[in-house]
């Protein structure tokens, strides 16, 4: 039991900073940037929470974690209680604690943020989850009563893993089908080691398999099996096969050697471990000057990866300004500290190459911001006569993805929207009864935590559906 502190003392504690690997040092390695709170820092930060009765932070969380409750446990010195509370609400807290855009969610709603800094909820979540993992034996692992129902989950990414974790708790027999050779989806192919170490994902996956979730890798739904085939074998399905096909700029020269989609660049480095060359077998081109086109989290991951692979100059090429960037604030700051060069208000027109079609540069226009467009962001406009060439030897295109048609093309009964994403009702159920969907295949490109929220909600809806069936 910790000594209680007065409300005044509580308000005087300032937000604790996340200990980080030195910016210069880390820009040359793939080790995690954020080092995590010590128990002491966590206690201090937890004491900043004023335990609101009507906690807005909970409403700000896509998986509705009871934040004040687990933070209270920390201040009470009951870390095991904090872990049980947190894991009860969120199947993958050591992942969300690292990759969530907290500033827009829980922390964005925190009352302490009105005057000053919000409670560092994400850092506390990560602390509790990491503590529980290294401690072991803290969480309840009693097997639930088998329900006799079989559920198939398509895709072992954040939505699928979350749904599987929730479904297995209810005693369902859960099998995940994963197209790649390793479970994790974007958590293993997309998000780099320095932001989310692969051993953390592996530990979370291991916890699920120990709880009874079966994972079959190398099974491509839409090819190895179709949805109608699975539907005949399972009582319910959850489709969470992810975003899919990368979008290109559609400019001349885009197929030159040295132009990557961010998906390929990151997959080579993360899933295929090219960051460890020459000890691994999958190559990636090491650019001296790498231009990453885009302003989202994927672009930040790609440009920081390029820096770590040894780029002398790693550049973000973005047609608006920093204010309009969809990337998390923390990622942009980390990139800046690591020496990433931001080419803002710049839009590529053409990829230039030599006679052997190796990339030599990007022909670009300079832009200025005009009137706000439909999204409310000010629309970038070309400054006439501003053309210039940005020299580079690798280009990474990180401007989004579109729905992968592999699965949906082999299941004509599945209702899609005009972009090819699966349509669902408020419960996440598709046009086929008993078939649910969530994550990027429904939302287009979104975040890990929104996918996890979909997984949690779908699991709840699947339970309801199975009880009625």
């Amino acid at each position, binding site marked *: 039991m910790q000594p209680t502190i007065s409300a005044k003392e509580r308000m005087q504690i300032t937000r604790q900073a996340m200990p980080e690997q030195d910016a210069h040092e880390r820009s040359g390695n793939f080790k995690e940037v954020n080092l995590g709170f010590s128990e002491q820092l966590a206690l201090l930060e937890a004491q900043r929470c004023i335990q609101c009765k009507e906690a807005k932070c909970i409403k700000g969380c896509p998986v509705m974690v009871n934040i004040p409750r687990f933070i209270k446990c920390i201040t009470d010195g009951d870390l095991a209680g904090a872990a049980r509370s947190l894991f009860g609400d969120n199947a993958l807290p050591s992942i969300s604690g690292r990759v969530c855009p907290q500033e827009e969610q829980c922390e964005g709603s925190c009352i302490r943020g009105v005057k000053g800094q919000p409670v560092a909820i994400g850092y506390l979540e990560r602390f509790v989850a990491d503590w529980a993992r290294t401690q072991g034996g803290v969480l309840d692992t009693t097997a639930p009563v088998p329900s006799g129902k079989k559920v198939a989950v398509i895709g072992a990414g954040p939505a699928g893993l979350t749904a599987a974790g929730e479904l297995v708790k209810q005693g369902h027999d859960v099998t995940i089908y994963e197209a790649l050779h390793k479970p994790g989806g974007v958590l293993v192919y997309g998000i780099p080691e320095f932001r989310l170490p692969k051993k953390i994902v592996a530990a979370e996956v291991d916890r699920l398999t120990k709880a009874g979730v079966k994972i079959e890798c*190398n099974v491509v739904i839409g090819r190895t099996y179709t949805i109608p085939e699975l539907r005949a074998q399972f009582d319910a399905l959850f489709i969470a096969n992810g975003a*899919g096909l990368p979008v290109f700029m559609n400019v001349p020269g885009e197929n030159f050697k040295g132009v990557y989609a961010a*998906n390929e660049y990151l*997959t080579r480095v993360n899933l295929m471990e090219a960051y460890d060359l020459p000890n691994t077998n999958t190559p990636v081109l090491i650019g001296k000057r790498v231009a990453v086109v885009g302003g989202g989290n994927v672009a930040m991951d790609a440009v920081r990866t390029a820096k770590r692979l040894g780029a002398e100059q790693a550049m973000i090429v973005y047609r608006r300004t920093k204010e309009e960037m969809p990337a998390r604030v923390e990622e942009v700051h980390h990139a800046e500290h690591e020496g990433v060069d931001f080419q803002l208000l710049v839009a590529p027109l053409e990829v230039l190459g030599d006679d052997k079609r190796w990339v030599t540069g990007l022909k670009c226009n300079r832009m200025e911001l005009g009137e706000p467009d439909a999204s409310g962001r000010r629309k970038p406009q070309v400054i006439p006569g501003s053309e210039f060439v940005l020299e580079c030897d690798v280009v990474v295109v990180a401007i989004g993805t579109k729905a*992968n048609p*592999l699965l949906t093309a082999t299941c004509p009964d599945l209702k899609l929207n005009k972009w090819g994403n699966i349509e669902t009702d408020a419960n996440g159920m598709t046009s086929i009864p008993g078939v649910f969907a969530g994550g990027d295949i429904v939302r287009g490109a979104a975040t890990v935590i929104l996918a996890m929220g979909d997984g949690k909600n779908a699991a709840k809806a699947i339970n309801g559906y199975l009880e009625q069936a």
Partner: protein
Amino acid sequence: MHTILAKKQLSPNVTRLDLLAPRIAEIKKPGQFVIVRAKEGDERIPLTIADADPTQGTIALVIQAVGKATRELVALEVCDAIRDVAGPLGHPTELISSGRALCVGGGVGTAVVHPIAKALHAMGVHVTSVIGGRSREWVIFEEELAKCGDVIVCTDDGSYGRKGFVTDAAKEVLETGGVDIAYAVGPVPMMRAVANLTRPYNVHTIVSLNPVMVDGTGMCGGCRVDIGGETKFACVDGPEFDGHKVDFDLLADRLSTYREFEQRANACADGQCKIRR
């Protein structure tokens, strides 16, 4: 895990492996491929399925040992297992149900032509296969293709069959008339030559492209090819395309992207490289 049940050396650097993959054996169609990793840490490589035996639950992969990953695959023996086999991927071959087909295979591509010829023959199509190699020992799948129709073998040095390139023999077949469709699988220059050959005869020609691929499910976009001025992903839009529309120069160019890495990896594997990197 996918246990290898049979192994056969087909030519000096081409090996056939028959391995357990019951689901793929059951549903695969001609033209489809699998993504394979021999063991943890290996590169993912796409390989077209050369044959399948659904009753035994096996598929046949014909592998040309050129890089580190393929060399590791062919070093495996019967009873060894392959860690990852994902598929069947890609669209099945566009087949005709009657008439006459010309099937041209070069080198290891002959193994890919085989399931196409087999399917055509089963539907009653008259198949003429033209296959080639540098010399006698490099000619593969002759016996299997002979069961599907006529076979003309060409060798560069004349040590077996006719002396010359497959295009010379293919031209003679086209000249006889009546060819409704052509299929060509082999090295890029061969496919390009066959596509150029059939163009004046207005014979629809299908080629199977083998660009660099990572996931094989459309996710990475690495296997971009230019088909009639449009960018397509070979893994989900192909791997077979209209040979008259393929930009073969771009394909050949993109295939050379990792040549330096490959040479270094091979040198290391041969023990020629004293220092890594």
